């Protein structure tokens, strides 16, 4: 069994605000959610969206996941019985899990002793708390667990959820990623290993880049078998058509310098989607703003796309929200889908100086309309007809022969040498 997998709902909480539309609209407009060198979700008040009990019994990374899943399932028109709950999975990834809970309870342990540690510590700090809580909140009774692959966790969650639906192990799967690690220990630890930017600047692919900016947030997508979604009258936002995942097996934190592992993941995702490299209209880069990632990723894109690498727009969501670690893959995949729907490549904010050998179109400054391509057929501009690109609803005229397929990939790479790439499509 191999079924087409559709997306019927998306939800996000990011430094650009609460809601997926805040993310794509503000990013497309070139606005940044980074302040003082961090990507905090300042607009997110868990008490507004969750019950007192949910707030008390969950770490912030779970609260973010709950808020994003509420939004995604609402958009999907989810209601009891719409999809068999026992045939609905829930896979939410995270890089670290409840590190804020670990740190605060460790302080209690050190200062007041073992009997004062919260009885809720374990259920709050465990990395699978987000998936368990989301499943509990919405009564999702199929496969449920968390993916743990650092900054690729959100993308792996989408990949395994897609397979689950594609192969018939589930009819629907709520997938995503969540992270809230802006804590003293986590920030100090990333800092001493020189992963984060000492200047607090996220400028992916720029010659002056000096590390990533940490962010927090969550992204959730509702995946369904196309036949199931159509039967219940759900609105289809797009398709998850391909998934490729590999390991560098090179170094625990540094990417393989040639981008070989990343390139294999991109090729695998395109092969899985039955898409030729030149059909890809947009690449949502991992683009962390670290010296090593952005160079290796550029080389991977050039290796896979050949001449098309110089034409396809490549931009990084991290330029405006920072690095959401385990949430990044999910947040960026749904941003990619919304960008495809709007027909625009949102910009890489902060990119100004080219580094030798890094000569892709990183979409500096402002969004640009996408051009849909299918093989060697003629180009079809699918962006807004005039003026600056408009998010949501902007759609140019498309040829009726199907050549207007809009295809994009979203790259995610994580400490541990994990590479995961998702191929998305709208029509």
């Amino acid at each position, binding site marked *: 069994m191999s079924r087409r997998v559709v997306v019927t709902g998306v939800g996000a909480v990011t430094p650009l605000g609460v809601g997926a539309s805040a993310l794509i609209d503000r990013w497309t407009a070139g606005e940044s959610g980074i302040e003082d060198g961090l990507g905090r979700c300042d607009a997110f008040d868990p008490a507004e969206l969750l019950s007192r*009990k949910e707030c*008390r019994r969950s770490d912030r990374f779970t609260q973010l996941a709950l808020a994003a899943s509420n939004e995604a399932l609402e958009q999907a028109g989810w209601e009891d019985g719409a999809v068999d709950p026992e045939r609905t999975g829930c896979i939410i990834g995270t890089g670290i899990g409840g590190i804020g809970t670990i740190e605060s309870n460790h302080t209690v342990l050190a200062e007041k002793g073992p*009997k*004062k540690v919260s*009885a*809720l510590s374990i259920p709050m700090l465990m990395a699978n708390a987000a998936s368990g809580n989301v499943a509990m909140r919405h009564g999702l009774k199929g496969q449920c667990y968390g993916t743990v692959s650092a900054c690729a966790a959100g993308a792996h969650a989408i990949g395994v959820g897609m397979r689950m639906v594609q192969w018939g192990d589930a009819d629907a799967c709520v997938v995503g990623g969540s992270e809230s690690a802006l804590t003293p220990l986590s920030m100090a630890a990333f800092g001493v290993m020189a992963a984060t930017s000492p200047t607090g600047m996220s400028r992916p692919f720029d010659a002056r880049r000096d590390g990533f900016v940490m962010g927090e947030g969550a992204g959730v997508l509702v995946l369904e078998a196309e036949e199931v979604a159509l039967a219940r009258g759900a609105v289809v936002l797009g398709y998850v058509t391909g998934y490729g995942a590999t390991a560098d097996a090179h170094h625990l934190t540094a990417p393989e310098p040639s981008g070989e592992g990343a390139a294999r993941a991109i090729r695998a995702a395109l092969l899985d989607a039955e898409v030729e490299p030149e059909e890809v209209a947009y690449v949502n880069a991992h683009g962390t703003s670290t010296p090593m990632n952005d160079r290796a990723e550029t080389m991977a894109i050039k290796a896979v796309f050949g001449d098309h690498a110089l034409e396809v727009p490549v931009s990084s969501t991290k330029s405006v929200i920072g690095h959401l670690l385990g949430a990044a893959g999910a947040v960026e995949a749904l941003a990619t889908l919304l960008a495809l729907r709007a027909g625009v490549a949102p910009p890489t904010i902060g990119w100004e100086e080219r580094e030798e050998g890094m000569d892709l179109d990183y979409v500096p400054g402002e969004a640009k309309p996408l051009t849909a391509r299918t093989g060697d057929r003629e180009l079809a501009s699918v962006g807004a007809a005039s003026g600056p690109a408009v998010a949501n609803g902007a759609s140019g005229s498309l040829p009726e022969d199907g050549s207007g397929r809009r295809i994009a990939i979203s790259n995610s790479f994580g400490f541990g040498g994990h590479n995961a790439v998702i191929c998305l499509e709208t029509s």
Partner: protein
Amino acid sequence: MAQTVTREQIQEKVTEALVELGADREAIKPEAEFEALELDSLDLVELAQIVEEEWGVEITAKDMETMKTVGQALDVVEQRAS
């Protein structure tokens, strides 16, 4: 400190603690069962920690097995605190 604690003081503090744990204030009555207040064993451990912090009263896991209602919890605290 323990000698001066009244039932009213205990009830007031426990009620505040239960609200903090997520119970509906209106539903908190001596005869109310913890289960009906949607409080589980993890919440009761938290309650025990609050009580111990306040009055130095220790409530064990074994005690909690017999505590089904708010009133029973108040009885245990009052007994231990006096």
